[in-house]
């Protein structure tokens, strides 16, 4: 835990440096595309009081000055499969984003969608010696959480305090300076596969960029796609990506659960390519242009030219009805949604007060998905587009960009993590200079 603490503290410092310099890049490395947004932080003074623009959770003090997207390469299930290919794709996207922005970017915040995330809810409790909660008490209660065995090679990606309780008064978000005798806290910890995270870090280092933070893609997508009330009342964000489908559950503006299914839009394309015996590119085009989930009588009559360039006239001139295409896509989407439903059930989503489900991500643009999802997951389903941020070009406002935009929001207004609090003194290493100093002072 010490290494993790130091590493995360180092990344926080890097992020602070980047904010001082004013330019930071946000990199969403997905399975089907890599998106890069270059953010410029102009400070909070660009709007006047009379404009009616408040701090808006930090959204008003940055704007997007460069956007670039490229096809992802060497990625599978949201993890890096071929390092060199991914590195080239990252180079491409960063170079083109820099070209659009016209500035050099040195710091990057990345998000990782796959790498088998696992959520843990931790609880800790301490007695308050002074009868009042101080900063160090908060750090102590966070440190007192009993950490389960995460398993070998797991890294903690997020460790966020979600709830504090003092003497049975629960639901406090900021317990400082409150009086009481016992302080308890709940912490949500998200761990991912250490090797996958290491690969990502290595890839970014190879591109001469300084990593200023790593976040979970499903968490970022939730930040961008859920509106504030949904985050407050309880909602699940389902990020239907290319290789993975991320699920994150929010309540009281904190993420309390995150997971990812290793199914995604690429599987739908694969099914189309196999079922219709067309190439992968043609299948992708068919899915994008003609795809759907609810077949109607009209779809039987709507014939789609498959096209192709195999050289065989008969093969290239085939056509299928749209109902056939829907018939291929629907079972796969149902399967993905059922997996998501299982995850939500395992997370105890049914016990939440408001069971709002927001679908976002590139695959959420399939027509008819909201009807299908409400049939499988529950009634309150909507398709969520990411929040609009300043300077974002129109072609980057699609649902597929919600994790990139959520990452930008997270950069502007970072969530308190466990490592943002000072480590309690007894957790310092034994050879700490401060300890030696204290020993000297006490003995002489």
């Amino acid at each position, binding site marked *: 835990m010490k290494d993790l603490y130091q590493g995360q503290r180092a990344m926080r410092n890097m992020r602070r440096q980047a904010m001082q310099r004013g330019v930071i890049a946000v990199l969403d490395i997905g399975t089907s595309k890599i998106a890069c947004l270059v953010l410029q932080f102009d400070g909070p003074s660009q709007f006047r009081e009379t404009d009616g623009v408040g701090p808006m959770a930090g959204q008003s003090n940055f704007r997007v000055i460069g956007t670039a997207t490229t096809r992802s390469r060497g990625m599978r299930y949201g993890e890096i499969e071929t390092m060199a290919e991914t590195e080239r794709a990252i*180079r491409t996207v960063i*170079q083109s984003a820099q070209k659009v922005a016209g500035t050099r970017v040195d710091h990057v915040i990345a998000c990782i969608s796959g790498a088998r995330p696992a959520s843990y809810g931790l609880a800790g409790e301490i007695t308050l010696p002074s009868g009042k909660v101080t900063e160090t008490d908060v750090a102590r209660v966070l440190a007192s959480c009993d950490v389960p065995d995460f398993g070998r090679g797991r890294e903690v990606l997020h460790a966020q305090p979600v709830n504090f309780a003092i003497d049975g008064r629960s639901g406090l978000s900021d317990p400082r300076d409150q009086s009481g005798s016992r302080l308890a806290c709940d912490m949500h910890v998200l761990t991912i596969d250490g090797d996958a995270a290491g690969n990502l870090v290595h890839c970014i280092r190879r591109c001469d960029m300084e990593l200023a933070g790593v976040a979970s893609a499903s968490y970022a997508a939730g930040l961008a796609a859920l509106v504030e009330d949904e985050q407050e009342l309880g909602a699940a964000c389902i990020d239907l990506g290319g290789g993975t489908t991320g699920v994150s559950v929010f309540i009281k503006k904190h993420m309390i659960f995150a997971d990812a299914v290793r199914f995604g839009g690429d599987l739908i394309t694969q099914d189309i390519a196999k079922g*219709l*015996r067309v190439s992968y590119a043609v299948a992708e085009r068919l899915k994008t242009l003609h795809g759907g989930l609810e077949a109607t009588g009209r779809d039987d009559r709507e014939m789609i030219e498959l096209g192709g360039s195999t050289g065989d006239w008969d093969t290239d001139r085939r056509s299928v009805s749209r109902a056939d295409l829907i018939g291929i896509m629907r079972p796969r989407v149902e399967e993905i949604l059922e997996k998501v439903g299982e995850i939500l059930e395992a997370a105890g989503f049914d016990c939440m007060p408001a069971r709002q489900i927001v679908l976002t991500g590139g695959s959420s643009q399939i027509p008819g998905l909201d009807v299908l999802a409400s049939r499988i997951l529950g009634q309150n389903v909507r398709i969520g587009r990411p929040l609009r941020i300043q300077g974002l070009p129109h072609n980057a406002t699609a649902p597929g960009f919600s994790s990139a935009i959520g990452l930008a929001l997270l950069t502007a207004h970072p969530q308190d993590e466990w490592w943002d609090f000072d480590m309690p003194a007894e957790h310092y290493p034994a050879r700490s200079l401060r300890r030696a100093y204290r020993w000297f002072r006490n003995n002489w």
Partner: protein
Amino acid sequence: MQGLNPFHRGHGDGGRPAPVRHVPARPAPALNRAPRRDPAPSRLAYRLNRMMLRPLVRRLVHIGLPAFLAAMVAGLWLSDETRRANLTGGINAIVDRIQHREEFMVKMMTIEGASPVVDKGLRAMLPVDLPASSFDIDLEKLRERVLKLDAVEAVDLRIKPGGVLSAVVTERVPVVLWRHARGIELLDKTGHRVASVTSREVRGDLPIIAGEGADLAAPEALALIDAAGPILPRLRGLERIGERRWDLVLDRGQRIKLPEDKALQALERAIALDRAQDMFERDIAVIDLRQEARPVVRLGLEAQNAIRRARGQPEIGPDGKPVEAAGKSGGKSTKKSG
């Protein structure tokens, strides 16, 4: 699945014959398409691109490098003596050709308001021979040189259209003659020298002043001469004493010593005395007005002797000594008898 099998396609319209296809003898060679270029930049290109985005490097490459190249090429080209000479020669030729266009040529000079002497001097001062380009004539410098002539008070030089260099000269008017140890000069009303003359007769109409430093106080002298109206016929001139005050010299050797300041008032008082008592007609050698409260008069020799005779004292000669010599008794006898 409907439509997936190509043979089931178009089953609606029965036995349509298959389209005629001319099968080539061997399959057409696959188009040897070049493999699609990798859109990713190489590591080197990426690093160079990022380096170029540094503001300093960017400025160096975009401004510094072209400037350096231009300077180097120019330097190398100019390092040859012949090329440099050719370049300067070419530039000079172009400048010359423009400056010697017909429109810029000055063909004649007109001088107004100058006496023949000044006219001649002015023409001699022109640094170039006419016709010349107006670029070669520096009017400001020429004007300064002309103003160094004593006889010229002001000059207005301009180049008029049609190639005429026009000089309008205002000459100094001599109003007084100044005699000093080195000769006689004509001065204008400010005391500035106008010209030298050989003798006083050249300008008999002008009053004369004398003494060192008289030219510096020439305006005062002119005021005194103006004020000396009634005695002007008798005025021989003004003399500067000790570069400090004026002496008014009348004929018959009379002299009015004026004070250093308020000389004009003192002179007016003396003239008033003369009018009232006919003072200057009497035998008075010197009227000393230097002390305002106490004017002093020195009598002439005749008057002194008349007083002495009346007192029965011996007469004195011009040297101030009593006359006793027998040789001179004949001359004095008439006075004694009178």
